[in-house]
């Protein structure tokens, strides 16, 4: 069986976009291309759990078929790996449900199976989640207000690498920051499978008060192109196009 590839964008931000394209519309557009958009909102230390400025976080993820969480900086490490995993499982579950509908007809999903069978379907999904290829594009908001959260972001991304490395399936990641001087996004790391590179490539804070989240998402979504380096398992031979789990 040839393995599929799960494609994700993970956006880490602490506030509202205030310039450029509408991030919710962009996110929905990206999701139609088979890439899920996941968002983590980072709270200020004394901020309440439900701040007005961060509602956009949930809207973007919802439109992008992804997962969102709003957390304090110290919970970031746990959250980043959990969101990535949860989003991947969600994509696989949708894929499996679509397959089930093809077999059993419309309206069928894992929940319409008896509990015993469901356990076995779940086991298959878990195996898929463990072995599929994963491409994650990390997009970090480095506007001035993120300054004191950067150590936590760095730690969280390093921790994410540990979890990605523990999987059986191949993974690749790229790291981008926004805003950047004279452009929307700045590349810190191109697609790579080398987890150790994350330690060196760390974003510096960009001065200025603009947060063009929508435009930044649009820019990085172009990085999931057809001829990007394909993550291969050892010894696996590529022939023809790979199936992609679409998250619709």
């Amino acid at each position, binding site marked *: 069986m040839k393995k599929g590839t799960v494609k994700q964008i993970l956006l880490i931000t602490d506030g509202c976009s205030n310039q450029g394209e509408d991030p919710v519309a962009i996110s929905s557009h990206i999701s139609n291309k088979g890439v899920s958009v996941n968002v983590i909102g980072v709270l200020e230390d004394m901020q309440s759990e439900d701040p007005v400025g961060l509602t956009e976080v949930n809207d973007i993820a919802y439109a992008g078929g992804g997962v969102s969480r709003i957390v304090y900086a110290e919970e970031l490490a746990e959250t980043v790996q959990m969101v990535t995993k949860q989003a991947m499982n969600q994509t696989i579950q949708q894929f499996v449900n679509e397959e089930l509908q093809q077999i059993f007809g419309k309206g069928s999903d894992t929940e319409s199976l008896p*509990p015993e069978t469901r356990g076995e379907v779940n086991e298959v999904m878990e195996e898929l989640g463990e072995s599929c290829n994963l491409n994650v594009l990390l997009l970090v908001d480095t506007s001035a207000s993120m300054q004191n959260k950067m150590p936590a972001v760095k730690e969280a991304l390093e921790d994410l690498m540990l979890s990605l490395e523990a*999987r*059986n399936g191949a993974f690749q990641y790229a790291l981008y920051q926004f805003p950047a001087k004279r452009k929307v996004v700045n590349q810190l790391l191109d697609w790579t499978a080398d987890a150790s590179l994350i330690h060196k490539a760390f974003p510096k804070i960009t001065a200025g008060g603009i947060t063009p989240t929508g435009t930044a998402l649009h820019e990085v979504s172009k990085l999931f192109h057809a001829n990007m380096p394909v993550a291969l398992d050892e010894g696996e031979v590529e022939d023809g196009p790979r199936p992609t789990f679409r998250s619709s």
Partner: protein
Amino acid sequence: MDLDQLSVPLKKGTQIKGKWNHQTYIIDRKLGQGARGTTYLAFHNHKRMALKISKDPSVVSKESYILKQINKVQGMKLGPYLFDVDDCLFNDGTNYAFYTMEWVQGDSVHQLLKNKFPFNLSNIAKQLLEQLHELHKLGYVYGDLKLENILLESTSQNVSLVDVGGVTKFGRSVREYSPVYDRGYWKKGSRKSEESYDLFSLAICLLQLANSGLFDSAVKRKDLAHYFSRSTIPKPFLTLLKQVTEGKYTRANQVIVAWEQAERRLKTHRHVENVSGRFKEIGILSTFVGVNGLLLWLLL
């Protein structure tokens, strides 16, 4: 999906009727609240059982699947016995999956530690190691080994592991873990599911049972050596647990042997201490007698 919102609040007396297997359960009281669902004590034909219900049906199917796998072990009891897996349709039209299992009595050592319960560390260590060894033989790691998941029945001193949410097949990435117990958190190894992953978490558990609150500052300081230096666990155990966290042991049964050796070392050490203590006493006594003798001689 919000991961904290998977709990299902149910009142005492609520009837849970299974859609597929047609069993009926009556909710008695809440036993526990986890991130992935709620566990209740329930009655089924006047028999007490534990019932776990979650808003995420995959939690129920995964956990019941694991229980079914590990219940197959002969000779040793691993995890509570699974009784039933089903869906329940509530009056308001919501449908939640649940499973029922044997009710394991006891308190979590996390709770007991708060109440300053006097633990027999060796008893807990050896029982857990034996259970981990059996689980590993099946090709699974326990994963989320932490004080909250270890149950102790105080009269029988029996230890059991509850919550199978972290149980993971060898070679996969560990499904659930908790920061302080996770070796990746301390940069002491990967999150790959292998025997040594559980052994690391076990070492952290035992260190905490010996010193309540040892890792309270772990969020600020991720330096394991610092916590070893503050531990008051007897030296032979400390040395062993240090080696465990360094990944020196790859099998649970190797640690059992090493733990027993450490116990013996501790006993001889204490014996030597007692003997040398007695020698000191004799020394003091003889000086005392000597001084008295001198005084007596002077007086005469």
